[in-house]
């Protein structure tokens, strides 16, 4: 079984989920900005956007650590 190809496929599936959820999170968080006009809504919207980016950043970093772990594991076993 080709572990390299399988790992790449797995990473693509995870990245697909991340792209969809990332677009969803950011778009949902961005909607209030510039559409409601009130300062409180603008601030809340900005905080939501920052939160969405932080969440996505953390997920991406976890994804990277997982990939690195799997890569090193396959390398040491082969």
């Amino acid at each position, binding site marked *: 079984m080709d572990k390299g*190809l399988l790992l790449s496929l797995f990473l693509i599936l995870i990245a697909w989920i991340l792209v969809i959820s990332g*677009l969803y999170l950011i778009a949902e968080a961005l909607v209030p900005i510039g559409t409601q006009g009130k300062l409180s809504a603008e601030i809340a919207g900005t905080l939501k956007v920052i939160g969405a980016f932080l969440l996505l950043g953390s997920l991406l970093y976890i994804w990277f650590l997982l990939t690195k772990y799997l890569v090193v594991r396959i390398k040491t076993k082969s």
Partner: protein
Amino acid sequence: MNLTIILAAILMVGYLSTELLLRLFIPRLKSAGILGEDIHKPDKPKIAERGGYALVLGIIITQIVVSVAVRQIQKYSLILLCSTLIAAIVGSLDDMIDLGGKLKPLLSLLSGLPLLTSGLLYPRPVLPLIGRARLHYAYPIAALLLPGVFSNAINMIDVLNGMMASNSIIILLFLSIISILSGNYGGIILTTSLLGPLIGFYRFNKYPAKVFSGNVGSLSIGSCLASIAILGRLEASFAIASVPLLITGFMIITSVGGFKEKKEMKIRPVEVHGNIIKANPDPRAPITLVSLLTLDKGKEEPRIVLESNLLFIISGILALLTYLFLT
């Protein structure tokens, strides 16, 4: 005029002009000594470098034909051309004077300026699970950044014979299918306008390569692809179809600790033994798409390119499924 005839004409103009230009360019590049070493072959042959100039000229000719033949998207075609030309200038500078790992990505961000200043941006993209979103502030920022980001991402996969061209062709084919399904007339024309030059280039760049694109070619293609996605309103589909590109870019940047040129990397991601390419066993080696595909066993160059194409086809299918069922 019938859409099928227009598409066939655009495809033929792009393909034939690029093929003809490459036939003219390759002997001249060789005689001028503009050569690059094909490091993944046992005898390390010298191959004509910077064939991307012919590719860019092919794109210019095609876009001029598109803007004359299809008046409705004339402005889009010209903005696409401007963005591609800026990336081509940056790539050309890098080929000549080596801009370095940090200045090149920074300068390539300039290729997003024509999009931002065009007045053609539509900040209401259709996104999965949401439908039509309103991104008044974020969309222009994304439009400014994406051509530069993708030109560098494409540059990172331009490492094996035919890989960059074939992977880009697959992305464009899936974007064309999604454009046809959604009745997106502009999207169909714009995607087809890049397919012709890329197929023409692929003929000479496939294994064993007769020409390399150079940074001038790879940066232009990346910028052109991202501009097509934005101007053709195919943003989400493009993001999903190009997931292997994003993986490569993200993995390289995080594993080498920032933007670095190939020669700046202390440890190479892969090792070459004769015809076989294998991931570097050193755990500190950078992770790239090629090193991922050759993790547990060495493979020949055409096999790796074929497997990378398979990954892009799967991403394209995911983009298609997302469009059909989640949008």
